[in-house]
């Protein structure tokens, strides 16, 4: 088979992807695509980004042998790719640095972004502070209440938070509002999208910037184990941390790739965010991919305990990987994720974010006493500080006392 080479020049991953936006945005996206194609090959851009990765983010992130979990599982040898140690506490910063450098090169002076859990908002506010650019973050009114510590962080970093009061008041509505802002202010504004979703070239751009995760992991595992891993596991909301880990391994046919979605209260219920298990192909935010929708094509609200996975769409490349069986996707419920959150904390002394807790839960569920002598890498894409209050409430621990 040929080497993996998606997307094509119009942003297609097989039938998925594309650019489904109004004519006010279309010329902008075409311009962005041209700029990105040019700039990504630029040596100066690459070295600037590398320098920021090394000295601002703290890359490369370690590949940690999780000996206690390995012992507990009696299954594969488990490694954590520790992007939770990055500056700002998650993988989101990798992409924000790439996009803000691009924005600078394109002469844009105003940055906008959407955020759900607040991690992408914090990362965007951080890079805006670093580069001295005006920053506006759209955030659902519901999420502002759920994620107070991150709202304060963004304010400290100098960002203007714009509460979104319409629709379901969460991530998808924040993204609608950010797109509206962009349409209104196309000339001076750069929209930093935080996931591998949205119209082309965003899914490709975000994947490319996040692929540093997989590139490092590949090099690290080859140096430690002298061979490639047998399994990769990552959680999938919009899918940026997962694409970042998976992409550099897509030509390695023997590496089995597993994405874990948030099933919420269960993928057969209405309270779910398991887009690829419970959804059907459709268009959301400018891209054709799996979405949670009713029979009439109206987009449903998603539900997950993890605000970062609480999105009714998924990046088009994941839809392609699923359809062509290059990766498999499974759902993990709120309850299972919460249990894994606690187990990982106790066993390894690492408090994970609720997002990778879904990947951990799948690991505990599917690999116990199985796949001995195999090697597995799990993307620990964020740390749990931001989730302490949510988790405490669910577990029944009173944080007020």
């Amino acid at each position, binding site marked *: 088979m040929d080497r993996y080479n998606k997307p094509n020049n119009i942003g297609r991953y097989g039938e998925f992807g594309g650019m489904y936006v109004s004519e*006010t945005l279309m*010329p902008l996206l075409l311009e962005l695509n041209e700029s990105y194609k040019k700039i990504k090959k630029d040596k100066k851009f690459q070295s600037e980004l590398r320098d920021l990765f090394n000295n601002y983010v703290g890359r490369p992130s370690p590949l940690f042998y999780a000996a206690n979990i390995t012992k507990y599982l009696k299954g594969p040898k488990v490694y954590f790719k520790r992007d939770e140690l990055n500056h700002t506490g998650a993988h989101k910063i990798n992409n924000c640095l790439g996009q803000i450098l691009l924005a600078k090169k394109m002469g844009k002076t105003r940055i906008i972004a959407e955020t759900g859990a607040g991690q992408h908002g914090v990362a965007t506010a951080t890079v805006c502070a670093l580069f001295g650019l005006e920053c506006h973050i759209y955030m659902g009114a519901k999420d502002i209440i759920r994620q107070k510590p991150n709202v304060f962080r963004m304010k400290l970093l100098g960002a203007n938070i714009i509460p979104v009061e319409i629709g379901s008041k969460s991530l998808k509505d924040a993204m609608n509002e950010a797109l*509206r802002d962009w*349409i209104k202010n196309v000339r001076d504004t750069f929209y930093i999208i935080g996931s591998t979703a949205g119209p082309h070239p965003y899914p490709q751009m975000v994947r490319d910037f996040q692929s540093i995760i997989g590139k490092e992991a590949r090099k690290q595992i080859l140096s430690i184990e002298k061979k490639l891993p047998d399994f990769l596991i990552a959680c999938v909301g919009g899918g940026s941390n997962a694409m970042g880990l998976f992409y550099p391994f897509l030509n390695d046919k023997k590496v089995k790739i597993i994405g874990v979605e948030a099933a919420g209260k269960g993928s057969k219920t209405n309270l779910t965010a398991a887009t690829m298990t419970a959804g059907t192909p459709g268009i959301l935010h400018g891209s054709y991919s799996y979405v949670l*929708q009713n029979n009439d094509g109206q987009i449903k609200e998603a539900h997950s305990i993890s605000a970062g996975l609480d999105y009714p769409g998924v990046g088009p490349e994941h839809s392609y990987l699923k359809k062509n069986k290059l990766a498999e996707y499974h759902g993990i419920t709120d309850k299972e994720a919460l249990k894994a959150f606690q187990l990982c904390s106790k066993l390894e002394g690492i408090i994970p974010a609720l997002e990778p807790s879904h990947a951990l839960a799948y690991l505990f569920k599917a690999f116990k006493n199985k796949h001995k002598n195999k090697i597995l890498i799990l993307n620990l894409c964020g740390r749990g500080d931001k989730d302490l209050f949510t988790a405490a409430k669910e577990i029944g621990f009173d944080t007020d006392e």
Partner: protein
Amino acid sequence: MNNLDKLPKKNILSLFMTCGFPSLNQSKKIFENIQKNKPEIIEFGLPFSDPMADGQVIQKSNKMALDNGLTTKQSLNLIKLISKNKGKTSYVVMCYLNTILNFGIKNFVNSCKGFVDGIIIVDLPYEEETEIKFELEKNNIYLIKLISPMTNAKRSKKLLRNSNGFIYYISSTGITGTNKLNYREINKNVKTLKKITDTPILVGFGVKTKKDVLIINTKTQADGVIVGSAMIQMFFDLNNNLKKYIRSLDRYIKSLKIN
């Protein structure tokens, strides 16, 4: 025969209204009133949960309709019902692509056949239109093109080759019903488009008052206007009182008419 081929040369008035807003029954009364005023074009908006190219007023109207359980099938039936008194008025459906994909392209076009003259698919760019355009052409329904101030002359030429019906010129880089009008810029851009196409050019986004309508028709080379959000906002301004609303709407439409 397509009514859009018989549009007058000047002062074309196109009125946009959300289907099923605020409820299916009330919507029928609103459209009957709009039809009674015989505008050149009525645009029937199909509600979508995530109308990202529209402003908050239209989104609010979409949500009200959807919260009342409106389906695409019901919207299309409503349009068909209103079309009994269609006369010379052109009927245009305005929607998002996901609505059509879920209904099935062929099924959707078939369901519009005979009473719909044109379709505007807000989030379907030129680059993705081939399949739908083919189906529409087979059934004598025109795919109406949107042009924005961001569309340069080279791209406009490409988009407007073989254009039919009318051109929807987006007056500002904004969303429906927001920014103030900049007549000078509109005229400059419309002039450029006039060199490219003979298809009538209608200006939409932010057209609200009788004065807006007059200025666009007299001070620019545009062939007419599209009014939408302002008609919906009026409903909320009247505290959702349908009786008062229909009376005001009637007066408002009459004030906008030049032809």
